[in-house]
C-alpha cells in the first residue's frame, strides 16, 4: 500500500493538540512555560487552561525541578522547550529529580534535528536522543508525523506512569500515518514490507525512508520500512525479525549517529542477530543555517540521497 500524504503539518502541532486534549481529559495535567510556549505548540493549552499553566521564564533547570515537585504532588506536569535545552541544559535535573524519583513528567523536546533550518547549530537538537535514552526509567518517543505525535502525546499522559521525553520538529512534514494502523507505545510499525533490506527510521525520517523505498523498488530492491516511534523501550522483536528476514539494516535518524537511534537499533542487532548495518544520520558534526530542504540535501537525509546510500551499501554487500 502506498501511504498518502494528507498534507504537511509540523509534529509540534500534533504535540500541542495532544496536550490540549489531554488537558481536557486529565484535570491534573499542568503545563510549565519556558518563554517559548507558542513555539513548542503549548499556546492552545495555555489559553484554554490558564489556571493550569505556569510561566517559569527562561530557566529550564528550574522547570524540570518544578515539574518533579508537581508530579510528587499528584499532578501530570508538562515541560517543553527546544530539545537542545530540555535534554542538555536541564539534564542533571531530569536525571536526578525526575528520573531517579521515577516521576510522571512529560518532557517535550522541540526543534528536533537539522530541519529546524535557519536558526542554525545552537537550536538544532542532534544529541537529545543519545542523552535521554540513557536515563533509567525514561520512555523516549519520536513520532513520525503530526497525527502520531498527537496520539503518542495522549498516550504519554494517559498510559505512562514514569518520565517520558517526546521529540518533535518544527518544519511542516507529511502527515501520512493512517488511523487504521495501530500506534502503541513500545511497538514498531512495518509501513512497507520487503526482504532485501530494512530501512529502520524514526521521526521525520520515516516519510523520507518510505520515499527512498519506493525509489529502490523501481530498481528491483524491495526494502522493508519500519517506523520506530518508541526509541525506549525499543521494539526488539521487530528489529530481530528484520535482521533475520532481510539480512541487512539501514537506520535513519535526524540526529548524531553516535549514541543515537542507530546505536539503539545496533544494540539489539549485535546481541540477538548480528547483520551488516549502515547508519544514516549526522556524522559527528554540528548543523548550520539554511532552508530545511537545503540542509537535508547537504546532510544526505532526503529520499534521493538515502536511496543512493542504501544502493551503495547493498552493492558493498555483494
Amino acid at each position: 500500500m502506498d501511504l498518502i500524504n494528507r498534507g504537511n503539518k509540523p509534529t509540534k502541532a500534533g504535540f500541542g493538540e495532544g496536550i490540549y486534549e489531554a488537558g481536557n481529559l486529565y484535570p491534573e495535567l499542568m503545563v510549565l512555560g519556558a518563554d517559548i510556549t507558542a513555539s513548542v505548540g503549548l499556546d492552545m493549552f495555555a489559553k484554554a487552561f490558564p489556571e493550569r499553566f505556569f510561566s517559569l521564564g527562561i530557566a529550564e533547570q528550574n522547570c524540570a525541578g518544578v515539574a518533579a515537585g508537581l508530579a510528587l504532588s499528584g499532578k501530570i506536569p508538562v515541560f517543553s522547550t527546544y530539545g537542545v535545552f530540555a535534554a542538555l541544559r536541564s539534564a542533571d535535573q531530569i536525571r536526578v529529580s525526575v528520573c531517579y524519583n521515577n516521576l510522571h513528567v512529560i518532557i517535550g523536546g522541540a526543534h528536533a534535528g537539522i530541519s529546524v533550518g535557519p536558526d542554525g547549530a545552537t537550536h538544532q537538537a542532534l544529541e537529545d536522543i543519545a542523552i535521554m535514552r540513557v536515563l533509567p526509567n525514561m520512555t523516549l518517543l519520536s513520532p513520525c508525523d503530526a497525527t502520531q505525535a498527537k496520539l503518542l502525546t495522549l498516550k504519554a499522559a494517559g498510559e505512562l506512569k514514569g518520565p517520558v521525553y517526546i521529540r518533535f520538529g518544527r518544519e511542516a512534514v507529511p502527515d501520512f500515518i493512517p488511523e487504521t494502523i495501530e500506534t502503541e507505545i513500545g511497538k514498531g510499525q512495518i509501513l512497507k514490507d520487503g526482504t532485501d533490506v530494512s530501512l529502520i527510521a524514526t521521526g521525520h525520517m520515516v516519510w523520507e525512508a518510505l520515499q527512498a523505498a519506493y525509489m529502490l523498488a523501481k530498481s528491483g530492491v524491495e526494502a522493508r520500512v519500519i517506523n520506530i516511534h518508541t526509541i525506549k523501550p525499543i521494539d526488539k522483536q521487530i528489529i530481530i525479525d528484520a535482521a533475520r528476514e532481510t539480512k541487512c539494516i539501514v537506520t535513519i535518524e535526524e540526529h548524531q549517529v553516535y549514541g543515537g537511534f542507530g546505536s539503539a537499533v545496533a544494540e539489539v542487532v549485535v546481541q540477538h542477530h548480528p547483520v551488516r548495518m549502515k547508519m544514516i544520520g549526522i556524522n559527528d558534526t554540528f548543523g548550520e543555517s539554511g532552508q530545511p530542504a537545503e540542509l537535508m540535501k547537504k546532510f544526505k537525509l532526503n529520499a534521493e540521497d538515502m536511496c543512493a546510500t542504501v544502493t551503495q551499501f547493498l552493492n558493498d554487500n555483494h
Partner: protein
Amino acid sequence: MIFKKIQDIEKLKEISSDIRKDILLSIAEARSGHTGGSLGLADVFTCLYFSVMDHDPQNPSWKERDRLVLSIGHVAPVLYAALAHAGYFPKEELLTLRKFGSRLQGHPGRDYGLPGIELSAGSLGQGLSVAVGMALAARYDKRNHRIYCIMGDGELQEGSVWEAAMSAAHYKLDQLCVLVDRNKLQIDGKNSDVMELEPLADKWKSFGWQVLECNGNDHNELLNTFGLAKKVTSKPQVILAHTLMGKGVADIENDYRWHGKAPSKEETLRFIECLNKK
C-alpha cells in the same frame, strides 16, 4: 494519627542529643558519611519533626502533611535519625546506613522503601525547584500544608537555586519556607574563600523573599523563627540559620575537614562522651 508536638525545650534538647549520637554511630558504622553538617542540623531537624511540622509517621503519604524537602542530600544521616526517632522506622535500622541492600542510601532515595522520604536528592541545587512545584500544587489544590526546604549555604553557589528563588517569589508562594544551614563552611574551606555568598540576606531580599535569621542551634530561637515565618503572607520565607558544623562535639566544631569525614570507633566513643557531658 498526627504526630503530637513537643513544646518542652528541655525535652527537645534531649532528642537532639540522642539524634546526634545516632548520627555518630550510624556514620561510624558505615565508615563514611557527612558528619559535620548532620550534627550541625540536629537541632533544626528536631524542631521540625517534633514541634513544627504536621505529619504522621504511621501515614507518611497523608495528603495534608507538611513536606520536608532535603536539598542537601548528603546530610541524610540527620534526616534518617530524626525520622527514626519520630517513629517512621526502627532506630536499629540506622546502623545499616550506606550499606548494601539498606533502605538508608548514602543520599536519600525514595525507591528503597524507607518511609518519610519526600525526594530522592543529592545533586546540589535541585531541591528548591522541587519544593516550588510542591508549593504550586498545594496552592492549586487549596491545601494549607507547608513545604520546608533544607539547603546548605555552599549549595547557594549553584545557579539553578536562583532560578527557583525567582519563581517562588513570582508566584508569592507563602507556603514555602527555606532553611539555609548557614555554617559558612564547605568542602574546600570557608564559603568566603571558596566563593563569597555575602551579602546573603540582601540577595534573598532582592529576590523578593522574607528573610529571617536565627541561631540554628538554639531550639527557642528556631521555634520562634519558624513561627514568624508561618505568619508571613504573599512571600516565600528563608531562614538563615546560623549553625556550627559539628555542633555538640567540641573537638570538631567549626572544622570544615569534618564535612565529609566519618569518625573512627575510638573517636565515636569520645564524641559521645562529649555529648553526654552537656
